[in-house]
């Protein structure tokens, strides 16, 4: 990612004059910018974006919205009244610049680009137009959801999928449709996020397919894609075909789900699922046979590894 950003600045340097350049990702949930690459004396920009008020000011200048790149000379108030300029850039000797929010072709705001010069007449109107033509390409190149989609495709054959952010927001996963089971706030997303939080890079479980009568299931696979040092993207959550459930019923899979959570007492399992102890015992018998295990501990581990379980947080269809 850093390499790609450095390449972006290198290529820009050949077509637009600037003394210092800065390409950053923006984390909208923590309202902060993380520099991916800089060239020239970019220290003052780094200092500025390290300050808590930076994102507010960038926002009030309109740079968190999709609009043409902004020249320093476009700013409607004197530069000394803008903190970025008064406290950081003017003292460092910068006099001109162009800045742009980086928006992907799908319209997602991923980052921020700033090019500065010591020479006030530059950059000019023509440079603004050049920067305007490349910002979407740059944003697409730095959009991590593309990489996440490729990783997700390589791990699981999915029919639907989304990217889950740290704050619980849901973003599209390029190339895959979304699904109502994966809508913001859905219990399946909550279970996936909770399970990834306790460890492991990849988890899988089953869930009842929506609207289906009987025992139709979908497989949920969640991949930890968090790079907290970079941005707010946390997980890829995918839906796919259930695979072989070894003849286990929804009740069996729910009991396995509770077993994995540490509920091992037969009466307690019966109470949680509102079935008799006989039914629980018979179900466990089926699971031990299906998973070819001889004790509950090995059964729970097998159910966890194979994703053969419906976690207790997953509601009925």
């Amino acid at each position: 990612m850093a390499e790609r950003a450095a390449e972006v600045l290198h290529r820009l340097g050949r077509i637009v004059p600037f003394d210092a350049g800065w390409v950053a990702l923006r984390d909208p949930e923590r309202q902060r910018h993380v520099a991916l690459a800089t060239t020239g004396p970019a220290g003052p920009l780094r200092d500025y974006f390290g300050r808590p008020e930076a994102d507010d000011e960038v926002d009030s200048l309109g740079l968190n919205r999709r609009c043409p790149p902004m020249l320093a000379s476009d700013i409607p108030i004197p530069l000394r009244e803008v903190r970025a300029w008064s406290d950081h850039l003017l003292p460092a000797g910068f006099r001109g610049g162009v800045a742009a929010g980086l928006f992907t072709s799908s319209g997602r705001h991923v980052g921020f680009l700033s090019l500065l010069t010591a020479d006030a007449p530059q950059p000019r109107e023509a440079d603004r137009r050049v920067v305007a033509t490349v910002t979407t390409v740059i944003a697409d190149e730095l959009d991590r959801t593309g990489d996440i989609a490729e990783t997700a495709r390589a791990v699981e054959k999915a029919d639907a999928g989304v990217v889950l952010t740290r704050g619980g927001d849901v973003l599209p996963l390029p190339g895959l449709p979304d699904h109502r089971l994966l809508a913001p706030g859905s219990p399946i997303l909550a279970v996936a996020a909770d399970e990834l939080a306790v460890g492991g890079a990849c988890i899988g479980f089953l869930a009842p397919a929506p609207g289906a009568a009987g025992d139709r299931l979908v497989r949920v696979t969640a991949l930890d894609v968090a790079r907290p040092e970079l941005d707010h993207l946390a997980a890829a959550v995918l839906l796919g075909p259930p695979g072989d459930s070894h003849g286990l019923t929804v009740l069996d899979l729910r009991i396995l789900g509770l077993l994995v959570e540490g509920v091992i007492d037969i009466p307690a399992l019966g109470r949680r699922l509102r079935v008799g102890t006989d039914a629980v015992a018979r179900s466990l018998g089926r699971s031990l046979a299906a998973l070819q295990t001889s004790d509950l501990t090995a059964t729970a581990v097998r159910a966890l590894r194979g994703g053969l379980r419906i976690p207790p947080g997953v509601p009925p269809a």
Partner: protein
Amino acid sequence: MSAAASLELAEIAGSAAPLPSRARDTLETLRRHVPFDAAWLALADPVGSSYTPVASTDLDPGTLGYLSGPTTAHDIEVTGTDRSRPPLSVSDLPYPAANLRTWAECLLPAGIHENLSVALFDGGGRHVGFLALFYGGTEPPSTVVRRRLHRLTRVLAPGIDPLRSLAAASRVVRGATAGTVLYRYGATRPLPGMDGDALLAQGSPVIALAHSYIDDGQVFASFLWPRGGRHAPDGHVRVTVLASPEKTAASLLGTVVLSPVTDLRGLTPRELEVLGLLIDGCSNQQIARALVVAPRTVAAHLEHILVKLDAHSRTLAAVRAEREGLYVPLPSSACRG
């Protein structure tokens, strides 16, 4: 024209589509720039010397079956079309086509009289696949067509490279320090862009275990392995096994990636061994026998393990350890099903 074709083919290679549809699109696009009557695009098996077809056009099932067999693989080797060289036509050979069994038994009877064949290599010189363009006419392919195919050869390999998605999948392992590609029968080959490691060498117990996980149908598995011997004098390393989702290349099973261990929850190497056997479903008695210690020693270890994992039962301890990737498989475990 050639530049446009290169660009179109590179776009297909970089697209999000699954491998078989990328391969089909590759042939369709190629046909618009390098004409042919029929074509066969196949993946090279780096372990055995066989080919797995990924796309073809205008070939009947009998011909397709023959081309995937050992005779064609042998003829490709004999004619040197498994090496990096310009496209070769059967008329370039110093002997008649019928001297090759593939031609005598399959292609000539199917009405194919000419061809252009070329091996496909990636940028690092890895043999990725093989492309054959077939012609019904007896006229050898023109120099123009040969040159055009030659120029496009280099952009064909990335489009059908099954390791590309494996390399993408292995990105899910954070801080990976080494990796390998696993093939059937436990053969391994370097994973592009990753270093190797002695633990990942062919015949190592880690590779044997990874193989058994994939055979069991697991798409993802993660465990710890002691470095420097069973008692982990050099600490532990995390092993992640990822099964290949592309079933196109028959012998390709998946990848095995090593990464540093972050948090062992303060468990000692001995406790990790006990925990491993617990996860395998061993009873205390069985654990005692496996580790050649007294049952009460096992009970004491388990007590510590429950405290360190903050678990109220053996089952919860096992599940928690498995989730956190703290499982150390013991090659001699008697209880693993």
